[in-house]
């Protein structure tokens, strides 16, 4: 089943067209990588899907719904979770609290029942705690659950961001450079984590620069350059695609 589809999606910042006429789709259960040189418009594409920006042109369809004018929090509730390239964890919260905050949109206790801990609020809190611990366990973060998240090493912070995104119970997970700044060992670990998440039934769209990681996890690869989709295909196809090599190495390098 097609879980997300974009048609002619365009985003211009003044004169700069960051994303240009991009047609894109992702099937349920797939891992798709979005690659391209710095400034190609990958993050902007994520921001369009998640409602942080509104497309200048074109449409985005998630499941059966067009995401026109939807707010970010509404889109998350529909089932798109994400991480950020420049980590944006909640800085005064522990790891556990960060993940619990991710469950916000799956709970509904109102002010009164929250303050007086009425049965529905109590039950909900128990469920949030249970679910959050389960996610932390799944990502091997349980032993550091009470640390202030932003005081952790970089690699852990990226993992906590993924845990927080999973806590929103997404159908589609967007990861923006989850292995950036990691060493080889950590990258390998990240590769395992992404696989593990997919095996749980999530659909994953990932922006990544590390070719080894990309080749290792992707069912399909989409390449952006100067906002344009210049290639799309299986990892082997992309590896040998001339336009892609050109985009990465420049015209001279390709020769």
């Amino acid at each position: 089943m097609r879980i997300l589809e974009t048609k002619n999606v365009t985003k211009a910042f003044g004169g700069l067209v960051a994303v240009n006429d991009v047609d894109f789709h992702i099937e349920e259960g797939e891992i798709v990588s979005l690659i391209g040189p710095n400034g190609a418009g990958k993050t902007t594409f994520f921001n369009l899907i998640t409602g942080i920006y509104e497309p200048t042109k074109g449409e985005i369809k998630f499941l059966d719904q067009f995401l026109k004018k939807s707010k970010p929090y509404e889109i998350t509730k529909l089932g798109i979770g994400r991480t950020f390239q420049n980590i944006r964890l909640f800085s005064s919260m522990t790891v556990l609290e960060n993940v619990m905050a991710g469950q916000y949109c799956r709970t509904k206790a109102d002010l009164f029942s929250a303050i007086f801990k009425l049965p529905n609020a109590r039950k909900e809190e128990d469920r949030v705690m249970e679910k959050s611990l389960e996610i932390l366990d799944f990502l091997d973060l349980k032993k550091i659950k009470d640390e202030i998240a932003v005081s952790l090493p970089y690699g852990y912070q990226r993992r906590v961001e993924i845990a927080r995104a999973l806590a929103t119970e997404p159908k589609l997970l967007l990861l923006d450079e989850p292995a950036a700044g990691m060493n080889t060992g950590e990258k390998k670990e990240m590769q395992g984590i992404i696989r593990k998440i997919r095996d749980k039934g999530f659909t994953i769209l990932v922006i990544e620069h590390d070719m080894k990681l990309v080749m290792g996890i992707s069912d399909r690869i989409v390449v952006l350059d100067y906002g344009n989709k210049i290639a799309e295909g299986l990892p082997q196809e992309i590896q040998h695609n001339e336009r892609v090599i050109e985009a990465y190495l420049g015209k001279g390098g390709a020769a």
Partner: protein
Amino acid sequence: MANLSRVLFNLVLATAILFGLIKILSKAFDFVARYISSIDKKTKRFINIGIALMVAIWPIVFINQPYVLRTSIIVLLYIVLALSLNIVLGFAGQLSIGHSAFYAIGAYVTALLTVNFQISFWIALPTSALIAALFGLLLGIPTLRLKGDYLAITTIGFGEILRLVLINWTNLTRGPAGIPGIPFPKIFGFMINTNLRYYYLILVLVMFTIFVSYRLLNSRLGRGLIAVRDDEIAAEAMGIKSTYLKILAFVLGAAFAGIAGSFFATYIHYVNPDNFNYMESVLILCMVVLGGVGSIPGVILGATVLTIIPEALRDIATYRYAIYGILLILMMIIRPQGMLSMASLKGGAKSENSGNKKRNKGLRGLSGS
């Protein structure tokens, strides 16, 4: 001339002493925070009961010292006020500097209802909270898109406008003359007419404020609020509707300020616009920032310290406000995160000065961004 140089000398001396004092106290606060974050639930409950007992017995011990009782009541009153601003500033991260407006609304509603309409305080109190909350909503909605400095300026404006209305709407408020003769509260024939009784009344209100603050903070809504404060974009991306939570914080903060105002009116028996000027808002703001933005124990401590210090400095009246000012400046330089910051109470104190700078932001992190 000699006099001036002596004053200057004294101020420099005071600065040096305060500097050393804050440095030492800073270590002590870290120690306390680390201790609090390390103790288990049972011990915590034990300590809480101990504090509650002490606070309950306190006025009986000082029953023959009206000065101590009055000061204690004022401390408790400011704890309610500071905790009410803490919901807006500490939880939602909205820099509101017009908070005394809601305090004023609470006080005037109670004054008008009890004096003009002979309505019981017990009805006037919730009505004051409700009407203040309504004004919180009224201020909260149009300022949703404002952040940091812009929000601060707008809220200052709101506070000043309200004060001017109180001064000029003489038909209703009697203008600068104020409203005297606010009666003692009476419940089932039991009159609250002594300092001791007022102490217990405000103590109940303090307990209620603390209770709501804690429960709110530890609920889904509290996590949502803190998320919005820490990073609004990330919060929205996690499915948190920030507009709703910000308005909720404004409404709740205003309601509790209204409760404080209502108590103030019935305790002092007289309200006038000067009680609720800009400096009052700044004072409440200082209590929250100095105590530790968002941290409930911190804010309680901040309100207590900033109410007692001017009293303690009464004997050196000349220097009182100078020392007060120096203290605030030094605190901001040495310990911007406040006395007992939120992060330090979660065990983040040990790495307080290392690692990610984003964490211990205090007021700095609230402007702009």
